[in-house]
């Protein structure tokens, strides 16, 4: 009485919804691009596309990569903004105090890492669920910033103090391509490979899929989770440094602005994977979708407020479509 394996017909039946599910995001992106190209002559020109990538895409993409890592491990990181702010705070303060760029850079990365270390302690050490642990970090981080800046007063760098390297990081270019794009591209490639093809990435995915199985297979679950939150914070710290270099300032609690879109992009990105798992390419497409829509709506004359509504409705529809097809697939 062995249970039957699936017949070829059943397999075919499964594949169709699978495909709808997986192609939803690229298709939505394509449609959106075509729509804006058709409705606004200013959209499909190189300068605008570069602006989309540099201004709307880069920072959110970096933060979202970090979020993807945390979500892939079965958790979430609500404190991405905190790590970003800490990095920015230390970087800008040290530059303002006349320290060399290298030291400030290192300190910024360490600052972000501090937030990650705290998360790792709460999640792995104390066994607090990631959602609540990182929520706590977010709150505490807000206080720390208010206390160190006299209640949230930004630190501005005068033109004279901004090191050349920082200007290069934010506004420079290599081979005619903007530096931020190089940074984000390297991170995308690095983390795509890390999550997909290294033993570490595969273990993290296994932990996210079914933690008990990972534990019962002898995987170093605790060590891997510590690494996940450290890496997540480190990546976000890079975004913090780039933000500081772009605006030549530290603005308290500015990192939280990325939080919700990063979560949205990560989960929209899960639709790209056949099994609905978080993955870096999907996340990047998700961020791209958000960036293109924000830019395109602006070009066709929607004001900032309608843009918000438009983006929100779009995310909602993508989610409805993908989850509905997931249900259809399960039933089929």
């Amino acid at each position: 009485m062995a249970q039957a394996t699936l017949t070829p017909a059943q397999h075919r039946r499964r594949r169709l919804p699978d495909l709808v599910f997986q192609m939803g995001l690229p298709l939505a992106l394509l449609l959106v691009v075509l729509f804006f190209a058709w409705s606004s002559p200013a959209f499909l020109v190189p300068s605008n596309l570069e602006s989309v990538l540099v201004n709307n895409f880069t920072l959110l993409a970096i933060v979202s990569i970090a979020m993807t890592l945390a979500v892939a491990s079965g958790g979430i990181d609500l404190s991405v903004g905190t790590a970003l702010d800490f990095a920015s705070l230390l970087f800008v303060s040290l530059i303002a105090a006349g320290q060399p760029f290298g030291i400030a850079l290192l300190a910024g990365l360490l600052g972000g890492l501090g937030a990650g270390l705290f998360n790792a302690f709460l999640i792995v050490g104390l066994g607090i669920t990631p959602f609540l642990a990182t929520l706590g970090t977010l709150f505490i981080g807000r206080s720390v910033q208010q206390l160190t800046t006299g209640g949230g007063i930004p630190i501005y760098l005068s033109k004279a103090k901004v090191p050349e390297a920082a200007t290069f990081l934010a506004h420079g270019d290599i081979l005619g391509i903007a530096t931020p794009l190089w940074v984000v591209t390297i991170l995308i490639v690095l983390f795509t490979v890390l999550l997909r093809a290294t033993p570490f990435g595969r273990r993290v995915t296994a932990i996210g899929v079914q933690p008990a199985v990972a534990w019962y297979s002898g995987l170093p679950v605790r060590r891997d989770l510590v690494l996940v939150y450290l890496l997540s914070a480190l990546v976000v710290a890079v975004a913090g440094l780039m933000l500081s270099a772009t605006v030549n300032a530290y603005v308290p609690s500015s990192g939280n602005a990325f939080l919700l879109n990063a979560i949205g992009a990560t989960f929209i990105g899960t639709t790209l994977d056949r099994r609905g798992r978080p993955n870096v390419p999907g996340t990047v497409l998700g961020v791209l979708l958000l960036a293109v829509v924000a830019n395109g709506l602006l070009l066709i004359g929607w004001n900032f407020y309608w843009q918000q509504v438009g983006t929100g409705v779009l995310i909602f529809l993508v989610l409805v479509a993908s989850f509905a097809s997931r249900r259809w697939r399960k039933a089929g």
Partner: protein
Amino acid sequence: MPSTDQSASPPALAMHGLIKDFGGVRALDGAEFEARSGEIHGLVGQNGAGKSTLIKVLAGIYRPDEGRIAIDGQPVSDLTPHKVDRLGIQFIHQDRLLVPSFTVGEAVFLGRERTAAGLLARRRMEREARALIAEQFGVELPKGALISELTTAQQQLVQIVRALAQKPRILVFDEPTAALVKREVDRLFAIIERLRGQGITIVYISHYLQEIERLCDRVTVLRNGRHVGTVSPAATPAREIARMMVARDIGELFPKRQVTPGAPALAVRKLARRPHLQEVSFTLRRGEILGVTGLLGSGVKELVRLLFGLDKPDAGQVEIGGQAATLGSPAAAVARGIALVPEDRRGQGVALDASVRDNTTLASLARFARGGLVRRSEEDGETRRLIEELRIRTPGPDTAVRDLSGGNQQKVVIAKWLARRSEVYLLDEPTVGVDIAAKVEIYRLIGELVEQGAAVLLVSSDLDELAGIADRILVLYRGTVVRELPAKDASSDALLAWSTGAMEAA
């Protein structure tokens, strides 16, 4: 066919010609079941015989493809859980479906709350529930206790009372003793007999024939979804009922193999984790299958957890391959060549939503990495090799494990450890929930493991299984080894007697 009822009154419950297919697999193939009013009627069969499908049809959870059901001679159709409830049929499920944070009163009356002026009459519910429990079982539960604060046995009482509060005509017990210790089992049996005295018809599902013998007036045997026979346990020896369940010689079920045990692979010296594991010592050799059995609370589960690094011992030493080993975590145990095939296969053994390949290579990813990257082609090669070697029935390495049958899922767990080249295998109830054909396959696999020089610690509560394939059997009782038997001398009766402590008392 069930024996025809002598009395004129129709049977309390009659199910005839039930057929139920699940995507090409016939779970019920014309099954028959008839229970007389006011009897305790056992239902037995191997895993996969159709017991649980039959019960889910009765509960209105599955709709049969064909067949008739009658309650007190009245045909009923299109059963839903709600309709079944109104017909006066209640179920005591194996997994206790109670809300942990509820009080006893709330749990008993959920869905049929007692109210005063529209508000919950909590005191009244509590009082009535406690009165019912006291009246039925003569037991006082701790005052104001929440469900989560009760013992397993107490929770079961709550569930029985919840069923009784509906004044049922038919009460179905699904493996109710699985989580109980002996004294609690005795108490439960007394309760069930009292319920029979109140005229309630009891359907009792179990795979313990001893329980059936003690408790049931009649027993129906299912095999491969078909009715094999309905007999009186008083007049039929347990051995005969077992033969009806299996329908073939036990010898055939357990493939023969010849292996001479080699060097010690795992030696355990005075290992303890109190209170459950007092002190256990044994040596397991390469090429040997060492069976371990014991009831819940005997320390068997604790022993497995210690050997896989899931818990830390209070005292004692473990040697692997002649060297002292500290098993501080599963990772450390795996690094020393220990493999665990856990009892909770779907929760701990395989990642259901991952592919056969991802599951197979999970514990040995580093093996497939070149320059820090895992090579997909090498993973696929190894997975295909193991699929073939273990005869895993799957469309390919990319199929999700969820889509495989229980037996094939279990083979994936073993494949994971073979890929890791583990040497000491802890098998915890490896054939629970797999059908009989897959069981034989798994026994054959275990045989091949030891032929290749692995050492196997087989933990099982299936005593025939132990007697069939183990070389030696350790019986644990109250946290110590009370008996070591060579398999050729081990009958299930003797094993049962030792594991219940009956031999010690004698």
